[in-house]
């Protein structure tokens, strides 16, 4: 957790008046993790921050893989031998709750959905005030020299084609094309060509959405070889 998230942690988890205190009054709740995007705001899971960060990152990827294809997830309940995990999502914020097996998830989900709205408010308060535009963003009165064009590199279409070929082995075709288009757009791949290092970075970000670790590693290595 970052120092800035410590404030959020105390607001979310600290004391009987905290936002999540009510959650703990529900039977079967063993712990929780509140995150905004892949950033952990607060957690009380009995694991290191590093491990919980990795968990949060994968939760974020899982949720993004649904929203990326136009599906709005309210919650995901995952059952395991030792515990159940209930993940509630609301925009970019999510709340993962560790539950004892056979807990009434419907009741918890209903309470937690309400509490997640409170999390939205805390996250909103944490956002820094909008800054004034930097001097470089102000339009100069005297036209400056045109910027030097980026070194010609890998065309975006070629990168898209390569990623489609790789990802379609492990994902549905519709999901693959939507994911690639969304991620490339999010990363600002609007130009005609990308420098190889930028193309590598963007490609790996897309491949990171593959859930299975070994498939992900294999495709990442194949991608890096192809993009040389």
């Amino acid at each position: 957790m970052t120092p800035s998230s410590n404030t959020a942690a105390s607001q979310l988890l600290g004391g009987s008046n905290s936002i999540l205190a009510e959650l703990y009054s529900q039977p079967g709740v063993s712990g929780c993790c509140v995150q905004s995007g892949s950033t952990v705001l607060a957690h009380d899971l009995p694991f290191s921050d590093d491990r919980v960060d990795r968990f949060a990152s994968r939760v974020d990827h899982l949720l993004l893989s649904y929203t990326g294809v136009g599906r709005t997830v309210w919650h995901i309940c995952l059952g395991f031998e030792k515990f159940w995990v209930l993940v509630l999502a609301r925009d970019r914020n999510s709340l993962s709750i560790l539950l004892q097996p056979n807990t009434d998830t419907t009741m918890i989900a209903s309470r937690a959905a309400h509490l997640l709205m409170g999390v939205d408010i805390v996250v909103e308060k944490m956002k820094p005030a909008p800054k004034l535009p930097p001097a470089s963003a102000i339009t100069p009165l005297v036209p400056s020299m045109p910027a030097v064009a980026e070194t010609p590199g890998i065309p975006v279409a070629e990168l898209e084609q390569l990623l489609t070929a790789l990802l379609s082995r492990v994902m549905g075709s519709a999901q693959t094309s939507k994911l690639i288009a969304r991620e490339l757009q999010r990363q600002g791949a609007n130009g005609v060509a990308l420098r190889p290092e930028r193309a590598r970075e963007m490609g790996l970000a897309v491949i990171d959405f593959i859930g299975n670790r070994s498939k992900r590693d294999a495709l990442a290595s194949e991608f890096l070889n192809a993009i040389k």
Partner: protein
Amino acid sequence: MGGNLLDEVSEVLIHLDSQKEIEKAPDCVFHKDNQEEARIMIFESDYVLDYSNEFSDLLALGKPLFASVTEPGRQTSFRYNPDSSQDIVLTKTHRGIEQILSALP
């Protein structure tokens, strides 16, 4: 998802064998217009299982048993059986996980 399965029925049950091949499913799954949606659900079952395995490694949760994804007007649940077969339940109404699992054969 622009699926049509829930336009025709309120519940769809698919049983996959250990090779992820359909062993049992209602006729609507095999209709031309619904095949892509059914294929996505079968893919999704494994996709969520991959994530579940990762979560289990990170938080020492034990073997994944089931997953349920609740969306507006739709709930997709997956049961991962000990013999590696899988059950997929798609419903229009949202149900408790206990209710879904207990209704499965």
